[in-house]
């Protein structure tokens, strides 16, 4: 990397921070329990809007993994999700009525809060419909992973987003708050992902899965990115550039091995496709608050109105992380 390039990226990182600072004025404290955060605690950062039905299981799942504190941004929820989050003993909540899109899909808000509260903590940045799976997660808490990463001098940990879907039309089985969404959406595409390298930031760009084949078959370049780096030992100077797809400094994006081996990695199970989705897609389309002027949601909406069923005879039913490991969707690397 040349000096110029490196200066340019540094400038961009500083711009991210300046932006986050500016956007932080849109945030209002609803409940600040950050005093409870102890050194070494593992934190979850998340933005949500009208996710009351998902939040109970979300909190439960990450508490069971061993997360110590949640920092949430409530983007103008009207379904009581905000109050539910505020009532939790280990959750701090900020609210905002401002545009999710103008805050670069929440990245600015979270960058600001991470800069304030995440310094020197392992942080997991996930949406309420993303569930982190890592090697041995059925027998070891997340702290076993972060301790090991720390001892191995690894600062960031990659996880591919895996879209989960039910068998049959997605509206067929209603989701009840507090239940495991993967009892319903337990199927996934095991092997149709394509990867390219982003030379500028050093991250991989992964596309594929049910969304790509159902909604973007004729425009595959526009299919959503599935590469994510959700778990980072956060330092004040770090910044997410675009969702959790890439970070600066760009060394943090090197979560993959280039010389033949496999680094340790996980998966984010994505419980987007539940019966709640159709309403969500219609609402998001209305608001125009998602990526690429909601092209994705538009495609969903068009596709969904035709009663979509992602299931095929080649879909795989989710069992556990070992299955994902064997399928090559994640790797133990040298963690034994």
């Amino acid at each position, binding site marked *: 990397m040349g000096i110029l390039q490196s200066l340019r990226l540094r400038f961009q990182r500083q711009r991210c921070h300046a932006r986050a600072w500016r956007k932080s004025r849109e945030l209002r404290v609803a409940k600040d329990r950050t005093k409870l955060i102890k050194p070494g605690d593992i934190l979850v950062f998340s933005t949500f809007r009208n996710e009351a039905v998902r939040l109970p299981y979300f909190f439960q799942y990450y508490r069971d993994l061993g997360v110590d504190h949640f920092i949430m941004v409530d983007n103008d929820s009207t379904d009581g999700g905000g109050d539910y989050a505020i009532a939790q003993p280990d959750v701090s909540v900020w609210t905002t009525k401002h545009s999710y899109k103008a805050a670069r899909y929440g990245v600015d808000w979270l960058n600001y809060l991470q800069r304030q509260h995440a310094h020197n903590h392992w942080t997991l940045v996930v949406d309420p419909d993303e569930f982190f799976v890592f090697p*041995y997660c059925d*027998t*070891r*808490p997340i*702290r*076993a992973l972060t*301790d*090991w990463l720390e*001892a*191995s001098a690894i600062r960031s940990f*990659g*996880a*591919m987003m895996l879209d989960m879907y039910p068998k049959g039309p997605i509206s067929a089985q209603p989701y009840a708050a507090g239940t495991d969404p993967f009892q319903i959406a337990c199927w996934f*595409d*095991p*092997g*149709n*992902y*394509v*990867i*390219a*390298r982003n030379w500028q930031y050093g991250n*991989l760009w*992964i596309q594929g899965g*049910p969304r*790509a*084949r159902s909604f973007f*078959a*004729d*425009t*595959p*370049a526009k299919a959503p990115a599935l*590469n994510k780096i959700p778990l980072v030992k956060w330092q004040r100077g770090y910044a997410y550039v675009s969702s959790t797809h890439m970070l600066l400094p760009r060394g943090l994006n090197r*979560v*993959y*091995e*280039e*010389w*033949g*081996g*496999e*680094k*340790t*990695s996980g998966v984010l199970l994505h419980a987007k496709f539940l019966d709640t989705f159709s309403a969500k897609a219609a609402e998001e389309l209305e608001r125009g608050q998602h990526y690429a002027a909601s092209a994705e949601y538009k495609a969903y909406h068009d596709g969904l109105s035709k009663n979509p069923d992602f299931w*095929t*005879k*080649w*879909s795989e039913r989710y069992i556990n992380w070992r299955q994902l490991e064997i399928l*090559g*969707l*994640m*790797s*133990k*690397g*040298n*963690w*034994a």
Partner: protein
Amino acid sequence: MSSLGFVMLCHTALHRAAQVARHWAERDCPVVIHVDRQVTRVRYDAFRRELADLDNVRFSNRLRCEWGTWSLVQASQTAAELLLSEFPAVRHVYLASGSCLPLRPVDELRSYLAARPMTDFIESVTIRDVDWTVGGLNDERFKLRFPFSWKRRRFLFDAYVELQRKLGYRRKLPEGITPHLGSQWWCLTRQTLTAILQDPRRSALERYFSLVWIPDESYYQTLARNYARNIESRSLTLSKFDFQGKPHVFYDDHLHLLRRSDCFVARKIWPRANRLYNTFLTDDAAINRMAEPAPGKIDRVFSRTLERRTRGRPGLYMHSRFPYPDWENGKTAAPYSVFHGFNSLFVDFESWLARRLGTVVHGNIFDPRRARFVGDVPIYAGCLSSNATMRDYNPEHFLTNLIWNTRGELQTFMFGPRDSQRIGSFMASDSNAQISVITGAWAVPLYLSNRNFAEIRTEAALLQRREIDFVNTLRHVKSRADIRIWTLAEFIEEPMENLQSILDAAEGANALRLTEAPRMADLSGFAAFLQSLKNQGMNPMTVGDFPQEGLVHRPPGDRNRPYLVN
């Protein structure tokens, strides 16, 4: 009084160290503990208070310890001296760390050692035989000086090593010692240990070893060779290192693996592995087995992870494995077979081949309209879509995905100049590909078609151009596939022989003889068709010397043999 005493070096997770020390001390094994000076006074005092009720636990003077430096040896020396002088009955001294955990009852260890009263258990191998050192400093550990900390002053460390290499500096070894290396966790007899600690040359030897790189892996290991009567060159502590030289950590889910290893002590244990601590520190079962430690099974588990981390699974591309070109250790996951031009020449070639091989045979999976998977299904293994736009977005990953998704099942597919050609160079450079080519076969469907000759002529020119490009790619010096190329004229002289040679190569020597032949397209009049192409100024040269009078057998000669490009 007990014949076995422990020296423990501790710096973190003191509550766990206290638990283990208590376990040993309560079972009549004296313990001397060294706590790193970097541990705060408050925590150290709390730690001492925790063990205050035990009269056979002592604390040695605290030193500031740093990985890879002499301070670790010093700490073990002072602690061992204290143990030997305070507990005269001790016959064997066991060096352990604060993250060690006993896996078998102390009594078993005690009787194991009592049965071998004069044996020193210390891994000690000459530097020539070692391959586990990290950083390339093998021989140079003993020949250069290392005054700078590797952890804190990496730049100075590296620069000083480089300087000494440039100047050709070599330290002189003290007389009478042969450098040996080994695990720093040992169990020595009083005799050997006192001989090392009371050596009249001790200060001279210390001056030498204090500037050796990682002396805790070489000081005792080298000197024991001079004094021990009977060395068992292995450590009684199970300790595995990964490819970065960092110890593997044991968690609760390793319980059964650890139990079956029959090792006496394991390191290092994750401090929060409650189940391991609860299980192994509860009261010992009375069974006194004399089983030999057998770390083999654990070794295998860990060497698999090493393989996974350094070489990975061939043919897998994913978010934590994306190798540079030529670093894939196999571009695809398994062998596959490609037939170029065969389904133009033969009618129903795919179904014939499927019957013959007893496996799945796809059509042209790079057909520009859609991937022709077997049975023309819209979606195939791994939820791979047959959509041509999606496939052509990244044809290389389309192919690697197909091969990965069907591991354990031979993939065979058709290819031809009418297909999307981008995949050609990838297949040519893939050693898993078996590519059989009949050049000029594209002319057969044109001949059989009922189209205007001007159209046919244009298309023939295009197809021939593409085919020549493909064949040139296959013949490129970098191609690694198993390649066979015939012209159409050559192939039809001995079609059965040629097919047999392909199947033999794919299946190995035991392949059955072909009995049923695929049905060839009717080629009467084909020669005239080729002639009229020539007359129109388009030379179908890739067809080869097609005999004017139709199919006649020429005498066999070298030019009839398929040529192998390998």
